């Protein structure tokens, strides 16, 4: 085994330091709130959300050299909150709950602002929470807002499940198969959760207006509610997706999520349309590429011989109006992280280091003053 890469590595390390990037993540100025997606915080298919199989949360810092249940890639003084909201509900409900949890945390600790990292629906809840907190405090409370794999413009999977497409016998059963049995707990409403994640109002006869389009109009990207907005996009070819994504795995349904049009022109449940080819890495098993960009598109630079980093993909521009992205922002596969929807929060099988991924986001937040 030849390990003579050392000189090259030293050179890389020198370059890294020369550009001001630190090894491991620095401590963020404001605590980081982790907002989970569908399913409960401590039970996503029997796994810990944003964690590993030993009960370790990615926001738990190590403060001793030999401590084992912690993330060694983040600063030993890092402050983080693993916020927990109702596992299956609309984002109107969950967003208000998230705002309450953040307000509680701020009251207990005395901090004046927070950053939020939201996965999947957690990224949508976070937008509402930021607006609620803005209203309650009369000022901006969220500094950096980062969404990961969030269906900001809807998910065809949600509509497919609501429509009871082939392979789906009931909405609840399908959501349970994908996300686990917490849906059966009290306070959950799987149908409301699914309706939330469809772009248009799902039903014109139910007397209420649901869906991402209306939600985006109410809680859009807004400098008043958060100082910095960015998103990480995930997509993977069908062969590597998680076995829990059964609709895809069993060949029932595969999202075609990399075509452009205004609104949901093909009525599949998400804004944009397909390009005619499914399974070409245009979705992460739950959300298409064309639904995920919010604010800046962030690029995750995974590095085997150095610490991972996040940079901004400046070429694609900023999505300031979630209901009106450009064609490139909806279709480009640039800076897409090749992981499925569940890989990035600790559900195997994957070769993905959640600890380093979230550490790199924390370091990025520091660079944005958060």
């Amino acid at each position, binding site marked *: 085994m030849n390990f003579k890469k050392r000189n090259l590595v030293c050179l890389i390390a020198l370059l890294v330091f020369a550009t001001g990037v630190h090894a491991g993540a620095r401590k963020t100025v404001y605590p980081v709130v982790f907002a989970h997606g569908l399913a409960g915080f401590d039970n996503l*298919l029997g796994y810990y959300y944003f964690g590993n199989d030993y009960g370790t949360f990615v926001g738990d810092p190590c403060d001793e050299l030999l401590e084992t249940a912690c993330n060694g890639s983040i600063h030993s003084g890092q402050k983080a909150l693993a916020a927990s909201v109702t596992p299956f509900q609309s984002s109107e409900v969950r967003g*208000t709950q998230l705002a309450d949890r953040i307000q509680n945390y701020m009251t207990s600790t005395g901090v004046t602002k927070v950053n939020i990292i939201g996965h999947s629906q957690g990224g949508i809840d976070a937008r509402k929470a930021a607006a609620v907190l803005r209203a309650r405090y009369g000022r901006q409370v969220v500094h950096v807002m980062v969404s990961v794999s969030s269906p900001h413009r809807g998910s065809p999977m949600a509509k497919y499940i609501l429509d009871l497409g082939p392979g789906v016998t009931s909405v609840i059963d399908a959501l349970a198969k994908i996300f*686990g049995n917490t849906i059966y707990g009290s306070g959950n409403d799987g149908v409301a959760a699914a309706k939330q994640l469809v772009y248009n109002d799902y039903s014109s006869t139910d007397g209420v207006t649901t869906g991402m389009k209306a939600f985006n109009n109410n809680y859009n990207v807004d400098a008043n509610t958060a100082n910095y907005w960015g998103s990480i996009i995930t997509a993977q070819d069908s062969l590597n997706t998680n076995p829990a994504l059964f609709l895809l795995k069993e060949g029932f349904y595969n999202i075609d999520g990399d075509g452009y049009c205004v609104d949901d022109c093909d009525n599949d449940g998400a804004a944009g349309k397909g390009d005619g080819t499914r399974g070409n890495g245009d979705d992460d098993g739950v959300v298409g590429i064309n639904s995920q960009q919010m604010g800046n598109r962030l690029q995750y630079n995974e590095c085997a011989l150095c610490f991972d980093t996040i940079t901004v993909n400046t070429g694609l521009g900023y999505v300031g109006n979630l209901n009106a992205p450009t064609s490139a922002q909806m279709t480009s596969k640039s800076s897409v992280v090749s992981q499925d929807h569940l890989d990035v929060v600790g559900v195997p099988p994957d070769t993905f280091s959640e600890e380093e991924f979230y550490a790199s986001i924390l370091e990025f937040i520091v660079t944005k003053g958060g």
Partner: protein
Amino acid sequence: MIKNKKILYIVLISISVLFIGILFLRSGKDKNQKDFESILTEGKTFDPRELPSLPEDYSDHKLMEYSVEEIARILQEKYGKNIDNPAVQIAMIEELLKDLPKLYPNDWVRVLNQILGYAFPNKVLELMRMSENLYNYNKFRESNMSKVGLLSDEARRQMIWKERYRLFGEKADQIWSMEKKMTTIGDTLKRIKESPAGNLDAKLSNYSQTLKEQFGKEYPRIMENKREQFTEGFMVSVQKDLKILSFGERKSALREIRATMGMDNAALGRWDALEEEREKIWQNQQKYSEKRTQLSSKKGGMSSDDERELDSLRKKFFGEEAEIIKNEEASGYYRAQEERTYGVN
């Protein structure tokens, strides 16, 4: 006859080959499992060797930036003192497995063996067995993911722990010690929640004692990071107790809970103010809800004047949050209809 016999032999041999082939394939072992098996069967040990000096700034770099010998030296430094602890062994193996399979996709098991052999020559076989068990455990979790996700909490625990004990024996208790602690705390909260209302002080004392027992000397640091979650967990579990109290009694009880959970006077002062504010908001929600029900139940539905009246009421009662509450109602969510969780919202 001879020709028929020849055909018969060929058929029999082909069937045998096919049978052996199927048996071979059915063993289902992947290359990594076979590599582990081969290394452990061979039982090769390593002679102690002189390793290079410890790199000065190694904690600022990834392990894989260094040579095998340097990695081994760093592992000695980081994990050597507690290498007999199975949780430490797992943490070390996991650190190596973050990058080894990516860097050496076809040969990572052998590279792992080499690094462990250089670092801990007397324990290399034990560590490789631990690595093999961890690999097999992860394979088990992957292949049973959907099944496990649909089980009840109790059934899931039973299934997972059975496999953990099968692979790791009693060491499993140490490896998943944090999970066991959190489970114990969760079970305590569940018992408190299911117990009859009353004896709030005793419940708080029981919970606080459980936390201290579970975390021992780590208690202050754990509370520093998780005080909010542990406090809210208790609040949710004692709703029956909090609901039967008057506002004044409840405010005092909430303060006592938070003080016991380690919040300082400044935090308690902030909470007092927030509790007052929230009480007022809930009262306003009730008033608003009554008026809204009255207007919306009018024959023919609400007129535009009624809508304007509601807008004005929302503004009066909820200030800057009025517009958000209007959005919520349009989506079918009414805050006043929710059950209040005292101490949480």
